């Protein structure tokens, strides 16, 4: 029986939450992610940067009505990594089916 390795970038509570949110939408603002994850702005910002550095999400900073806006969007790599992570989790939960 072989267990697939869990991606260390995704195997973290807040980063997994961010990617799970972004997988379901086209794009989301930082404020939306903060509200849904109940994280502090500082922590969320750090984790978003880690996901960005891994190439899992794209981060766009822009101004809307003179207010700064940070928009996050999952990348193709991010989607593939998320799918692989879920498959790996399944292999742990249901050994022998994969």
């Amino acid at each position: 029986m072989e267990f697939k390795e869990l991606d260390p970038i995704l195997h973290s509570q807040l980063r997994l939450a961010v990617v799970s949110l972004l997988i379901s939408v086209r794009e989301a603002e930082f404020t939306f992610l903060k509200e849904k994850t109940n994280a502090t702005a500082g922590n969320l910002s750090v984790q978003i940067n880690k996901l960005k550095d891994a190439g899992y999400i794209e981060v766009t900073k822009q101004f809307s009505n003179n207010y700064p806006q940070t928009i996050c969007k999952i990348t193709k790599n991010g989607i593939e990594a998320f799918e692989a992570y879920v498959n790996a989790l399944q292999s742990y939960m249901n050994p022998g089916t994969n």
Partner: protein
Amino acid sequence: MEKDQKLSNEKSLEIIQQMISQAKANISDNGLGWLLWGSMIFLASLSTYFLIHADAAEIYWGWNIFGIFTIIMLTYELFKPKKKAVRTYVDDLLRLVDIAFTISLFTVIFAINFAVTPNGGFGFFLMIFGFLMLIKGGAVKSKSLMIGAGVNWAGAIAMFVNKDFKYDMLIMAAAVLIGYIIPGFLLWRKYSRQKAGQIK
């Protein structure tokens, strides 16, 4: 969700499920758009009916005002600041539906002015109204909009069969009352109650 805690497999699955359900498209409609557009079309139709009835020289005053209103509203829609903190795939799809509806609307306006008679062409308005009502009604789970779609399609057929333009205008007014104004009012009431925390 503060510290970067060590995750069990069960906890990982729980987070995924929780976040996906949090991000689920929660489409709402405050009904004001339906009320506003419906009232304009209703008044334009009725004014045309009464102007024809009164043998007025110019019977399209209501529609001309409606046309100016449409251009102002579309310009506003195009340039108004977008406030949504999240953009879903459903949002994108509904936006395409709105674009398709607007283009179809202008195609019918062009046809009525240059290709077909008003008597033969106005029924197409109700046909595309029904299209919009069914899709938006399904998206916001509004039975009254979906019923309105059926009424508008029936109205379109009635207008194609009817040969007296004056009565086309009455059919149109009745169709938008049932398809736009009543569902718009019901959506607005539901939205107001939700906002006040009376219903979930």
